């Protein structure tokens, strides 16, 4: 019975540790402003949060085949989470609308694509402006 109490206390400590990190990941996701900052808090929940929760479940469950599978889940998430973060970073750098000066606003430059009428009007306006400058 004593070993059961020790397992319960250790598992509860690990579970609360993991839940603390998961909740702080959510709070960070709400408080940060840009996606590259949010990736930091998401990675916190992905590594320490899931490790704490799964270690707590392992202590509750005892040594089993299921425990090995739980640790396989931890290994899988630890392998795939940096790759996912890298892909999100790659997308953010390629699309490139997340810098601080743009403030998350998408620049509206596709006014060109409104048919030939718009194009003619713009071309004539450009020519007139150049002539006035002369």
């Amino acid at each position, binding site marked *: 019975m004593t070993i059961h109490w020790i397992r319960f206390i250790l598992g509860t400590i690990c579970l609360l540790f993991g839940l603390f990190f998961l909740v702080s990941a959510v709070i960070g996701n709400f408080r940060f402003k840009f996606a590259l900052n949010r990736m930091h808090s998401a990675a916190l929940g992905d590594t320490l949060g899931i490790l704490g929760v799964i270690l707590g479940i392992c202590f509750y469950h005892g040594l089993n085949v299921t425990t090995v599978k739980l640790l396989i*889940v931890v290994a899988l998430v630890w392998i795939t989470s940096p790759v996912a973060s890298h892909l*999100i970073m790659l997308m953010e750098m390629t*699309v490139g609308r997340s810098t601080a000066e743009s403030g998350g606003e998408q620049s509206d430059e596709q006014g060109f694509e409104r048919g030939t009428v718009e194009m003619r009007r713009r071309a004539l306006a450009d020519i007139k402006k150049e002539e006035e400058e002369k």
Partner: protein
Amino acid sequence: MDPLTTLAPRMLTGAMVILAACALATLFRTFIGPRMSDRIVGVNMIGTQAVCLIVCLVLRLREDWLMDIAIVYAMFSFLAVAVLTKMDIGVYRQWRIDQEKSRRRHQETREAYKKAHADRRHRRSKS
């Protein structure tokens, strides 16, 4: 009394309630995220929290086969993030190509109009 049969299920229920609240908050954040990358970060976090929830259910319901579902869910969550990022990069590249094409066409139209305008003015000054 045995704490692993009396107290541990209550702990797990509380943990699952907290995890569900976290997942709902992240879903709201995903919904209001201003751009695509914020939403993909939210989807990634929801995947992690769902894996934690399934793992808690393994012990709460005493169903060990749910473990395999957690493994498959972790794999598919990663796959979803990878596919979404690649898709958004492809959409952005196509948008840039279209923009460049339309800008070039605008330039050509502008040159043609400039030439026609110059010809007309030349003829007018001659007569």
